[in-house]
């Protein structure tokens, strides 16, 4: 099995390593530690799949159920990729759920639907980008704390979504959009939404690990003052990051429209918490300076699988919430331990 490649698994072997003194710096820990964490999360996922397979062998491992789990993971997954960038830069975006709601209702108004598939997709993406732009300008150039700026966006975007819909569900009548969600559209058994998620993940991983954009994101999150004094335009970078998060929300909103066949102002409820939790248990540091897309995706899969197993076993959602909480606590404790090892 191929591990999701980590940033330090790279280049030629280092011939000097042998002659060097044995010490902390020599274990190439940058990648190694991320690997350990990803491995432990993979272990958790394997255990969950085993539990699912044993308790409900016929239902859990059925193709249709796996397709369902992956589809559910896809929407929150796309949001989480954007969130991972923002958190890696030392920021936070509390408004993702509200942006998804706003984009999904704006893109499903009667007026928008007249423009068909392209109109819906375009509107969802533009609304997401617009909200991200406002967030980014307030934070990067207005000097607002990300928590407050995106909290304000959360409130106003939800309010605007309610205003637009008047609380009613807006049914989608464009068939080409609805067709994306049906079984006939599956490619080799994979739902298109899952393919979108996969594409966003790959692009996100490349962006974070292989481009100057990603490097600057990590630098800003690791030490914004040092980044500024090194000549990086910290404010512009912050603006781009909230734009990116908004873009991901726009894409997620379109996916939600496809899946639900409608737009609703209650869409995306508490996505912000799920996305933050998935990124954190994946190994992205809430204080910034380190982020892992692979970890975030695993985090999303773990949470979605738990939800699925609990639902199949007819367990109350209360128990499910408690299990989620326990996993967050356990993952962060493991993270602290690995990190402290590095501080010694």
């Amino acid at each position, binding site marked *: 099995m191929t591990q999701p490649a980590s940033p330090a698994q*790279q280049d030629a072997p280092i011939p*000097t390593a042998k002659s*060097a003194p044995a*010490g902390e*710096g020599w274990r190439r820990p940058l990648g190694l530690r991320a690997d350990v964490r990803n491995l432990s999360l993979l272990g958790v996922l394997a255990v969950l799949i085993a539990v699912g397979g044993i308790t409900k062998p016929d239902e859990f491992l059925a193709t249709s159920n796996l397709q369902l789990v992956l589809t559910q993971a896809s929407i929150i997954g796309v949001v989480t990729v954007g969130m991972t960038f923002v958190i890696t830069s030392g920021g936070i975006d509390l408004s993702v759920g509200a942006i998804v709601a706003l984009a999904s209702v704006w893109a499903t108004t009667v007026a928008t639907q007249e423009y068909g598939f392209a109109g819906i997709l375009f509107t969802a993406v533009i609304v997401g980008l617009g909200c991200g732009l406002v967030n980014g300008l307030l934070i990067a150039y207005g000097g607002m704390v990300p928590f407050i700026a995106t909290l304000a966006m959360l409130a106003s975007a939800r309010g605007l979504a309610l205003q637009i819909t008047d609380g009613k569900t807006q049914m989608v009548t464009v068939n080409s959009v609805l067709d994306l969600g049906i079984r006939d559209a599956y490619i080799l058994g994979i739902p298109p939404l899952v393919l979108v998620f996969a594409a966003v993940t790959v692009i996100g991983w490349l962006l974070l690990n292989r*481009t100057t954009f990603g490097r600057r994101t990590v630098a800003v999150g*690791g030490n914004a003052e040092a980044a500024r*004094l090194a000549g990086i335009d910290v404010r512009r970078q912050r603006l781009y990051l909230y734009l990116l998060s908004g873009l991901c929300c726009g894409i997620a909103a379109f996916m939600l429209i496809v899946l639900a066949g409608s737009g609703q102002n209650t869409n995306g409820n508490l996505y912000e918490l799920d996305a933050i939790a998935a990124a954190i248990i994946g190994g992205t540091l809430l204080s910034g300076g380190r982020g892992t897309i692979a970890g975030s995706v695993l985090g999303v899969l773990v949470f979605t699988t738990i939800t699925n197993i609990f639902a199949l076993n007819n367990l109350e959602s209360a128990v499910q919430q408690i299990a989620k909480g326990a996993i967050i606590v356990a993952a962060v404790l493991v993270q602290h331990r690995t990190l402290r090892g590095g501080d010694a």
Partner: protein
Amino acid sequence: MAPEPAPDLEPPLLTMSGITKSFPGVRALDGVDLQVQAGEVHCLLGQNGAGKSTLIKVLAGAHQPDTGEITWRGDVVSLKSPIAAMRLGIATIYQELDLVEGLSVAENVFLGHEPTSAGFVVRGKEARSATALILGRLGHPEIDPAHHVGDLSAAQQQIVSMARALSHEVRLIVMDEPSAALDPDEVDNLFRIVGGLTADGVAVVYISHRLEEIRRIGDRVTVLKDGRAVAVGLPARDTPTRDIVAMMTGRNVEYVFPERPDPARAVDRQPVLRVEGLAREGEFAPVDLELRPGEIVGLAGLVGSGRSEILETIYGARKPSAGRVLIDGSPLRPGSVRSAVRAGVGLAPEERKAQGLLMLESVTRNVSVSSLSRFSRSGWLDRRQERAAAQRATRELSLRPDNPDARIRTLSGGNQQKAVLARWLLRGCRVLLLDEPTRGVDVGARAELYAVIRRLADEGLAVLLVSSEVPEVLGLADRVLVLREGSVVHTADARELDEHRVLDLVMEGSPTA
């Protein structure tokens, strides 16, 4: 070699003997002795890095000594925590005020020992009246105990700090450069307060760089140098200045400075950096400066003399209130770091960890961070090329370990500093601004860093160096600007200056004198 206490004195209030304290890579205290009598003003002198602040932190219970003994009123004690020290009657007023800005004056004064009833209900009125009493005693009845500390002036905040010290049953007060933030009038008031305290039998350990203050209020002086007490309990009023300066500067460790090139060599080159009337209100007066390729110019001065501020303003990290900075004759955009970096200016900042390094990252990524666009095509990084280039730059500076993937935080201070220099080397910068380049670098590694800096200059870089260690500036720089309280008071060839002359310039004449 600790001198015996004078026989005619009563047993000392405090005796510290053989105190040692090491931090990773630094021996901050190397067997320090200190004796303080009740009712005296005992002055602590020493250059930056001599161990003064570590010593007072040991005394305040904030640091635990590795070895050594502390005797307090005849009993051996261990100061396990700041609270333990406070219970004994030792109070410390730090240079950086440690007040909570959002709380009132009275709440700050009684923070941690609020008068309470039933164990938890704070009796605010009682605290306020007790605070008013102390403030009156300190000659500042105009400070309202209910006022928020954040709204007070620096001088008033200092009074509140002092009131906090006096709210305990106190026998010894440590004051770390209390006059640094004060106007002359306020200094007079401070001295009056100190006089009142000593008359009541309270001992004061007083730290200041200003010799004339020590002459005015000090009883005895202890001089620290390189973590040792080189003189214990000298008379403060009549020990000659020359002797005190000599004790502060005489060194056990000889710094090895690289050969200076012929001074005539640089003169015929065109200056690469020109600073014209650069000023920042409240920080430093207009400065003019020219820097030629191959030249190292040093700024000498005390903390607060404006040296770091000048450097950061040239770099664009602070916006000037007047003047401009030119590289090759074209002005930089004021207050723009990016404009300076693009023009070929690099900064090794004073706080290396907080301002310079990405502590979670590898050496490569710390070195390449300012040159990312060089290793990328349309944003796409060529990491092989990046790593190789970073390795070339770090090898040129013999950074150890020779592993570009090592984490920066596992490196020693000297090698971390080399990584910062390699960053600018890789960027191809032409003007290097160095702010305290050897802070936190152990003595052995300094000589190597000096050699690296000189070699960079020989290769054509122009270097502007700020250091609080006068020998470093004199030994490394070609030309020196001496700063005092935000103004350049003297400019000279480094060969024409010696340490005593510079210390006289930065210490003796303060504008109040």
